[in-house]
């Protein structure tokens, strides 16, 4: 209130921050970022695949191999083991797409993570849900999969009254919901924080009262710090999304884990 009255500064509602003009009808900035990230990922791997694999990797080839090894060593080997290596393309695509959709949130003049809108996280979460359920049904049969899901082995029979609904809800509803909401809410919260500090420092730098102008340094420092923090968050959220997808798929393929 006080700040508002001193600076004549009003924080815009969130939906105005997320309002983008359509580039062409039906395609806005978020769709453009999604297309660009798919394109960038494809280009990196296309240029990597065209290089001579025999010589020491450089440039995009090195980048692509680092990503592949990161997925294989830090995600698949940690959660699915050696026989999960066939999932490399899917998890790699998931990781790269989510990361490249997160990163525009901190690139100057773009400043909008595509995952801060619900559409892409929701689609990816539903896709992961479909994939892990399909894998469970394929590897354990429909009856065996739902039996293991509802009646997890190694639990006293009397506890099934309590556990069966919890397991069912948590696997079939909470998992995709939390997967989508985690990514979306993290990116939206980061975006809002950046917007808040950017608007606050702008309002202070342009204040009519001269004494307020130097104070604008503090929100500006906070803005720089949060941008650095968002670099970490963009990577971490892509990593967590991918590793949770790997854990769900591994749990559906091998129910004993």
């Amino acid at each position, binding site marked *: 209130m006080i700040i508002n009255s001193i600076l004549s500064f009003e924080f815009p*509602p*969130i*939906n105005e921050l997320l309002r983008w003009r359509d580039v062409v009808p039906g395609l806005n900035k978020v769709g453009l970022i999604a297309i660009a990230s798919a394109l960038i990922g494809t280009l990196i791997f296309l240029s990597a695949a065209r290089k001579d694999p025999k010589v020491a990797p450089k440039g995009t080839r090195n980048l692509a191999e680092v990503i592949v090894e990161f997925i294989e060593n*830090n995600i698949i080997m*940690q*959660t699915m083991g050696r026989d999960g290596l066939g999932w490399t393309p899917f998890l790699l695509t998931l990781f790269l797409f989510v990361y490249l959709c997160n990163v525009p949130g901190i690139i100057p003049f773009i400043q909008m993570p595509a995952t801060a809108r619900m559409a892409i996280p929701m689609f990816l979460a539903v896709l992961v849900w479909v994939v892990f359920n399909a894998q469970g049904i394929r590897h354990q049969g429909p009856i065996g999969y739902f039996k293991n899901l509802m009646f997890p082995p190694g639990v006293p029979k009397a506890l099934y009254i309590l556990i069966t609904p919890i397991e069912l809800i948590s696997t079939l509803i909470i998992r995709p919901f*939390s997967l989508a*909401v*985690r990514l*979306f*809410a*993290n990116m*939206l*919260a980061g975006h809002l924080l950046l917007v808040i500090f950017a608007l606050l420092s702008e309002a202070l730098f342009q204040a009519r009262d001269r004494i307020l102008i130097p104070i604008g340094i503090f929100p500006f420092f906070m803005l720089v710090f949060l941008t650095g923090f968002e670099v970490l968050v963009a990577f*971490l959220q892509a*990593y*967590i999304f991918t*590793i*949770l997808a790997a*854990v769900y798929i591994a749990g559906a393929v091998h129910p004993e884990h």
Partner: protein
Amino acid sequence: MEALSKIVKAAADAATGDEKNIAAAGSAGFAYGLAAIGPGIGIGMIFGSAIEAMARQPEAAGMVRTTMFLGVAFTEALALIGFVVVILLKYA
């Protein structure tokens, strides 16, 4: 508690749009504050235990780190659902 009862009372009394907005904003802030308590404690405990485990067995650090991120992801989801509920209260 007094604040909560005031907010609830304001929300109940609110008939016109402006009063309802004010009540929604207040309860939204309160809801997020409540939603952040548990996950905050939980994430602190997870990181503390993970650091302890890594210090005791540095050779298991990779496995501990992976499990730590998984635990943080599950715990953090609660706080983020609180954040989403705040936006829902304000806009839906």
